[in-house]
């Protein structure tokens, strides 16, 4: 059983090694989509992130616990 799992080809690395035209295009598209998604996320983060980061982080001091 363990052997089988080890031999299972992985989609990702297969694509990379045989980076022919189609595969590369697919990857580029995927990369683009990821970038768009990340942009959207960063926009949302901008809306909620606390202001004065330096001050905020500096003021967060805890006593050790447990």
């Amino acid at each position, binding site marked *: *059983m363990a052997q089988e799992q080890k031999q299972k080809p*992985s989609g*990702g690395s297969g694509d990379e090694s045989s980076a022919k035209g189609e595969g590369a295009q697919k990857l580029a598209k995927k990369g683009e989509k990821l970038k768009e998604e990340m942009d959207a*996320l*960063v926009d949302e*983060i901008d809306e*909620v992130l606390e202001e004065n980061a330096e001050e905020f982080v500096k*003021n967060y001091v805890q*006593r050790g616990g*447990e």
Partner: protein
Amino acid sequence: MAIPKVMGTEVEYGITVRNDRDFDPISSCVLLVNSYREDHDAKILWDYDQENPLADARGFQVEGEKYTPNQQENIARNKTLVNGARYYVDHAHPEYSCPEVTNPRDLVIHEKAGERILEKSRIEANGLLPEGAQMLIYKNNSDQKGNSYGSHENYLMDRRTSFKQIVEHLMPFFVTRQVYSGAGKVGSENRAQPCDFQLSQRADFFETEVALDTMVKRPIINTRDEPHADREKYRRLHVIVGDANMTEPTIFLRNGATALVLSMIEDGIIKPSFALRDPVRAIKEVSHDPDCKREIHLETGKRLTAVQLQREYCELATRYVTQSSDLDPSYKDVVEMWQRVVESLERDPMELVDEIDWVAKKAMIEGFMERKGVDWGSSQVRLLDLQFHDLRPDKGLYFLLERQGRVKRLVSDEEIDDAVYEPPEDTRAYFRGRCLKLYSGQVFGVNWDSISFGIGDEPIKRILMAEPLKGTKAHVDDLLDTSKDAAELVRNLRA
């Protein structure tokens, strides 16, 4: 035959009050915990008589003073909830100990219910603060300045399994499980090697292999021998090496995989020794390697990556689950996820961006850095790390990912909301929670393994609950239905 892995977690939260020059963590914690209201308003003691945090699993009693607060302080700092949980002030942190559950899926539900209870009380507490002040709560383990607070797991174990056995097979597992159970952290602390980002919030703080301490010279394996159950039969393994996790899959796999390894240790089926040459050093090396490629030294001279070591445990566990018919069905999901996660970690950890805390956090921060042109040293990046753990649904960055469907869920919001008020039905937490709901005015004191009643002028009656799997709904619903008050309950119990 391994005994059922009854489990629970204790999460200490970070707390701060913004715009309050006189911020005092302890009084803020007391305010927070007392701002949480359930239907009843009874003043119930936490029963410290039963506690013994200085007993060492290696067979001795450590000298030291046991903490026993006076009655007023006790009531102000401890709340036992109708869902069977304990919500209290531990040193300078609010802490939520979830009720005992029987499987990792229920654990996710009840740990998440804890977050909602903290958030509810935070909102209430804010109403009592001076204008402009605002209380904030973080489910993390460090203030990025060298102060750490814990997130502990507990697992019921068979007393017959020697502690030595446990240590031998658990150490390599604990050093390496952070590849999927780490909550991620920007930078390093506690004089550890500098780094940009590491897998675990806690790894920098472990300084010794095995010991009783939890606050200084923290050990990878904690020896506290306080079973909160029949001590002839059980141990409670008190795990202090984990992170406070946010994503449901991380919590599920953390507790599920650990429970399986403990069951396998009890059944004596982990034969190979993966003993590490230097666990304290290795735990930091693994944490400081987000590529998950670094090899660590085994005592045999062999070198393996943390992921390879996890694969070894995972393969044993997969076989074990196939052969054990009486395990909770959720363990099938545990091994499936575990295998998949190990494969992804070997290929590219970033594949786990929607499941594993540290990966989700790292991807989010890197996306932000790229767009803003800032680096790991920027205070905005440190803020992202902190705010990932903020409990406010509208501000917390984990909750932002959740809202946007960027992280996988394993349980429903309804299940979590129910667990705020309903105890698990299949452990003694059911009896505890129901007694608090039905007879709160007559409950005098509570501990994990007992509940005592003050009925009129009679002496206090303590009911022991030494068996974590008794006092379930199936066991006690008839009894509770036929007992209209605690006096009747006690009488019916004697009958």
